């Protein structure tokens, strides 16, 4: 009883997050190497070596930071990633928490992520971090709406706000085909909530690392880890909302799920390396003028399809 309700879920989430975050770093390293970055320690070793270096580095201070918020923000972001992953089903029974409203919970993880990222930049009390935080809020407020409409779209055919039901509703046809606009829009949300690649408005190069520009040592390691973990959690949500989660022939359900998560991760990381950072103003315009109306279309599509 205790094993099934407490230890197993915690174990599941921890293992997937840690292994997943490591794989994110490795895949990213491999992609960067394939695209021509001179590689040093080798893809499998580099993330571990960098982590070890950060553990050996001193955690620095800035002038009058908000210490509690500054130190808590990376941990909170990691916690949000864990909460997000906790509602992702790996099989009809292997779910850390099978909340009835897990799709809405995922939405609130996205909203709270915005808060935490803002807090991380704001609390450092340095200019570049603060600009990163401001910018991220503009992006965050735009992607949350898109995500909401897209997720309502997948909840409609399932007639449920539960991820396990959403997966079960894709028995005949995966949502990626049934609602072709959904997955691309959701991937944009994913890039936004992990501020990865083209949507890296928070920790970008033009801000010398943005919200993380004044962070060093173990807190920076936690922040990097949390970002990768959030990417893993997102890939879990995307795989179960659009790619049929555990459904698939021959292989056992959880294996299918992991394969699909890896595929989503690979796509996101590839986009991250191939596209330039979108200018904030252009980004917000795109979000509100192009992607948000597209998410309406997606929702109407899903509604009509559900009524059919």
């Amino acid at each position, binding site marked *: 009883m205790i094993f099934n309700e407490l230890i197993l879920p915690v174990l599941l989430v921890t293992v997937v997050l840690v292994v997943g975050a490591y794989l994110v770093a490795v895949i990213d390293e491999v992609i960067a190497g394939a695209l021509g970055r001179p590689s040093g320690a080798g893809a499998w070793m580099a993330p571990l070596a960098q982590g070890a270096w950060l553990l050996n580095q001193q955690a620095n201070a800035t002038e009058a930071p908000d210490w509690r918020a500054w130190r808590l923000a990376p941990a909170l972001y990691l916690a949000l990633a864990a909460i997000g992953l906790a509602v992702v089903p790996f099989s009809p029974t292997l779910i850390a928490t099978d909340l009835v*409203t897990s799709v809405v919970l995922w939405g*609130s993880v996205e909203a709270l992520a915005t*808060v935490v990222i803002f807090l991380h930049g704001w609390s450092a009390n340095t200019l570049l971090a603060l600009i990163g935080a*401001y910018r991220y809020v503009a992006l965050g*407020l735009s992607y949350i709406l898109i995500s909401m409409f897209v997720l309502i779209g997948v909840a409609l055919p399932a007639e449920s706000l539960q991820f396990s039901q959403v997966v079960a509703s894709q028995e005949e046809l995966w949502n990626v085909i049934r609602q072709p606009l959904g997955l691309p829009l959701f991937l944009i949300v994913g890039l936004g909530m992990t501020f990865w690649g083209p949507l890296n408005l928070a920790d970008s190069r033009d801000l010398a690392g943005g919200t993380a520009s004044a962070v060093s040592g173990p807190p920076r390691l936690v922040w990097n880890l949390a970002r990768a973990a959030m990417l893993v959690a997102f890939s879990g949500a995307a795989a179960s909302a659009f790619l049929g989660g555990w459904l698939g022939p021959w292989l056992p359900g959880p294996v299918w799920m992991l394969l699909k998560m890896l595929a989503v991760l690979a796509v996101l990381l590839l986009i991250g390396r191939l596209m330039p950072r979108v200018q904030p103003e252009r980004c917000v315009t795109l979000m509100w003028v192009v992607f948000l109306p597209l998410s309406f279309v997606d929702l109407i599509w899903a509604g009509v399809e559900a009524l059919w």
Partner: protein
Amino acid sequence: MDYPLIVDVFFVLLAILAVVSGWRVFATDSMVRASFFLLVSFIAVGVIMILLAAEYLGVAMFFMMAVEMMVMAIFMVMFMMNPAGLNPMMMVHQHKFSIAAGAVSFLVLAAVALLAEFPDNPLSADIDPVRSLGNELLGDSMLIFESAGIVLLTTMIGVVVLSSHNGRYGAAEEGSMPPGLVPGGDPAGMPEEEDEGGGHHHCH
């Protein structure tokens, strides 16, 4: 209705968190911190709602309040002098009266909670709260729900009109002037040429 011990323990912790963070909202030096303390208070209440089986409402609370407090924090930074809390801050008026009013209202409400007899009619196990809420929203109470939607739409339009920079009769801040640092003093924190706008001020 009897809850397991673990639920009671969680409830006590969350209740303390909700009250303490609610109090810290008005006791911290930084406006941004204040809005996030309020968020913590809301989240604690949201978790209590989930404990009470209102799963949708509790989770919706996280969602709504995260966005709302984020916007709040941004407005704080926009309008307040001391967003980072680097300076001590206590901006209150009628302080004693407010404390008394707060205490009295708490006491009255607490008395109601303690003394009134409420029917003991706990949630029956066969109700699916999310489904019942959905059926209510789009069934019997659809009119209320839709009116709320219309009101929100009207609010949006009104808000855009109120806050837009340019109105029918020109720029919104035409002829405006900041208050002085001392009562009746020179306008604070505005460029020199704005002082000419101050002359205009006497006209009305």
